[in-house]
């Protein structure tokens, strides 16, 4: 019953957020929000730009790439010289080169894959100055790229799609900063830690236990970690630790924050192209897929753990509790996990490695759908629009007309770009998984044996290729092989889709609008929603089916066998 209310309250809260945050973001990127004008204007002067200096898609994309390159270099540098920087009460010393490389790529691409344990590797300086900064900046880059693509649909015969620097500043100051700060207060109020005072040692006179407890500026990082669909926690066990996620209320808030921006951007999209119905159609496709995945993943986790059953506890009324926290329970952990994997967040309030075979299947396939239901901050919307273009193209083939989407003719160039954008990820993930299982350095990674070991490898490369960052944590990822392969996976997974999306924006902006006629293929009705879901499921499902069947499906079918 409690779970039902959790869902109901989330639906109501997210519905209101979709409507109001969605239109607020449309106003922000239209330049109609000015309450921080006094901060905004000096920033534009420092950057040597202004809102009326627009960029072509090429310049926009170049700005994205150069800025990302500088962010990468700075993050790498800060981690390498950590030992010489202040705010290091535990004297943790420099981070190694391969790990720094992987971590810099990870936070820059909004992945937040973590091959390290936060409390034993990163100083407060690195957590704040290197990692948390990227947790603000990388989702903002994703969001503005999506807005640039949307402008391609909204504009007529335009050579430009906006100004990257202006969009970035607006997104950071008007959207991410205020929401994160408010949410941070709730996290701390509930019990998340926020201090720079270092560890605390306790001695319990009752049982003789002594503990040294890791602390840090955790609560406010937690807020932007979830809001920006980042997922990289301060502590190794992420949102499962009470210092990051102290109560069932913060767990609810985490789920809400992860979903807020990705869902709301469909409203922003509708608003900017002049038809909220168009945004609602994309939202419907996202919600339907997301809902089905929540349903069967929660159901699977409520079924109990096969190993625990075989050890004599057959009736598990609280479900599969291996790797789960009592204050969340089985179904809420599953809901958190689905939200985290389908928004490209990748935070974890439980051990995903210990989910039941079908529960793990839900998480893995949720990412394989391409992070579009609703996907990451911005990345979800632009990837969804790429899938929508593919759907329009297929629909056009079926009725034998030149496909149009929002009045823009979808021609060979757009179809090629959309094809590229939708195939990069599956190709990348499958090739790198094949490499990892073929070489010794890849095969020694998994903790578990049998099909589950294969799933650990497949999950790691799927997660990084989709810029998700969640993990089947048993895999030993901090090796030169996984650090380098993972970094390549994350970088191609990010820019291999973002750049075609920006190119699409440029190409669409240049086109005129074809007036709607009786024969126009409608993209705001149930039929189109079904077509989009079909495209998502076929691209994700069919491409990955052979790989999936070697992992979780075999594991599920091997009744009574242990590996």
């Amino acid at each position, binding site marked *: *019953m*409690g779970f039902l209310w959790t869902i109901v309250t989330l639906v109501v809260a997210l519905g209101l957020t979709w409507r109001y945050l969605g239109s607020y973001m449309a106003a922000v990127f239209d330049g109609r929000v000015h309450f921080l004008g006094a901060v905004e204007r000096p*920033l534009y002067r420092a*950057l*040597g730009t202004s809102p009326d200096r627009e960029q072509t898609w090429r310049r926009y994309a*170049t*700005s994205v790439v*150069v800025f990302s390159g*500088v*962010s990468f270099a700075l993050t790498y540098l800060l981690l390498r010289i950590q030992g010489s920087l202040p705010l290091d009460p535990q004297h943790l010393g420099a981070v190694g080169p391969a790990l720094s490389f992987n971590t810099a790529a990870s936070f820059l691409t909004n992945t937040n894959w973590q091959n390290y344990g936060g*409390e034993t590797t990163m100083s407060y300086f690195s957590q*704040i100055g290197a990692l*948390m*900064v990227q947790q*603000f900046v990388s989702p903002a880059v994703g969001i503005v790229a999506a807005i640039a693509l949307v402008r391609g649909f909204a504009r007529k015969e335009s050579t430009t799609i906006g100004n990257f620097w202006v969009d970035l500043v607006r997104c*950071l100051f008007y959207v991410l*900063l205020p929401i994160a700060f408010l949410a941070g*207060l709730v996290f*701390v*109020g509930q*019990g998340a830690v*926020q*201090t720079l*005072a270092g560890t*605390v040692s*306790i001695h*319990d*006179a009752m049982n003789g236990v*002594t*503990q*040294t*407890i890791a602390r840090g500026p955790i*609560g*406010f990082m937690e807020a932007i970690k979830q809001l920006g669909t980042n997922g990289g926690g301060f502590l*190794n*066990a992420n949102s*499962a630790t*009470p210092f990051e996620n102290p109560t*069932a209320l913060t*767990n*609810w808030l985490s789920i809400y924050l992860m979903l807020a921006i990705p869902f709301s951007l469909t409203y922003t999209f509708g608003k900017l192209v002049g038809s909220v119905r168009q945004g609602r159609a994309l939202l419907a496709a996202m919600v339907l897929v997301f809902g089905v995945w929540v349903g069967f993943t929660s159901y699977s986790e409520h079924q109990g753990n096969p*190993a*625990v059953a075989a*050890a*004599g*506890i057959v009736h598990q009324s609280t479900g599969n*509790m*291996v*790797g789960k*926290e009592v*204050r969340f*329970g089985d179904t*809420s952990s599953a809901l958190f996990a689905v939200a985290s994997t389908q928004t490209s967040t990748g935070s974890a309030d439980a*051990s995903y490695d210990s989910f039941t075979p079908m529960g793990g299947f839900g998480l893995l396939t949720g990412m394989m759908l391409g992070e579009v239901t609703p996907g990451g901050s911005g990345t979800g919307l632009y990837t969804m629009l790429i899938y929508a273009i593919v759907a329009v193209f297929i629909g056009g083939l079926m009725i034998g007309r030149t496909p149009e989407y929002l009045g823009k003719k979808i021609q060979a160039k757009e179809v090629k770009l959309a094809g590229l954008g939708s195939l990069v990820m599956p190709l990348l993930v499958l090739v790198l998984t094949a490499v990892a299982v073929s070489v010794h350095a890849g095969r020694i990674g998994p903790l*578990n*044996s049998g099909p589950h070991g294969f*799933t650990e490898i497949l999950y790691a490369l799927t997660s990084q290729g989709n810029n998700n960052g969640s993990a089947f*944590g*048993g895999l030993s990822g901090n090796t030169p092989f996984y650090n380098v392969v993972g970094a390549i996976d994350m970088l191609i997974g990010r820019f291999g889709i973002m750049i075609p999306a920006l190119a699409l924006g440029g190409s669409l902006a240049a086109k005129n609008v074809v007036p709607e006629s009786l024969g126009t293929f409608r993209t705001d009705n149930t039929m189109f929603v079904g077509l989009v879901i079909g495209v998502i499921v076929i691209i994700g499902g069919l491409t990955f089916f052979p790989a999936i069947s070697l992992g979780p499906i075999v594991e599920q079918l091997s009744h009574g066998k*242990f590996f």
Partner: protein
Amino acid sequence: MLTNLRRSVVMAAISLVVFGFLYALAGTGVAQLLFPHQANGSITAYGSTLIGQNWSSPRWFHGRPDDTGPYASNPKKGIAGGDNPLFANGVAGESGATNLGPRSKVLLADTKALVSYWHRHGVDPTEDLVTTSGSGYDPDITPLDAVVQIPMVAKATGISPSALRHLVAAETHGAELGFLGSSYVDVLQLNEALAHLERAGR
């Protein structure tokens, strides 16, 4: 290209200052002002109510077995054990789960060992008492997890089972706002109440 580079450096510097340090410092300041107890780790006289401890003696209620039986810290074998937020009783660790898969032979053997551990203590365990948590130091158990341990605690302390049942009921926190998560018992608070009851009884 050069313009982009210059703008990137400026933007990176602004981000470092505003979204790194100003955000974190302002957050820390407000948090320390409004919620000092929470912001510093919910520390009480016996430890943090948010960090599980190892209660190995039968005279205490046990938490999740993050540091019990097969999961007990063993530096020789390289097992950090749970309940180690950084160090516990001199053994280094960090937060984390066992990450054992649902069809793992190791998980099966470990769970069997825990079931017999509880049976030796006269307890018929629930699933939470034979499975480890996500953080490695889950501070809570469900009310049922506490109730099934009553025979063990009653025998070791001499307190009547009915008094212990009242104790568990009094220490049970309901689901938040009535529907979020499940009702739970904080093991540290429960054992503090138990110690209080023992002192009062003498």
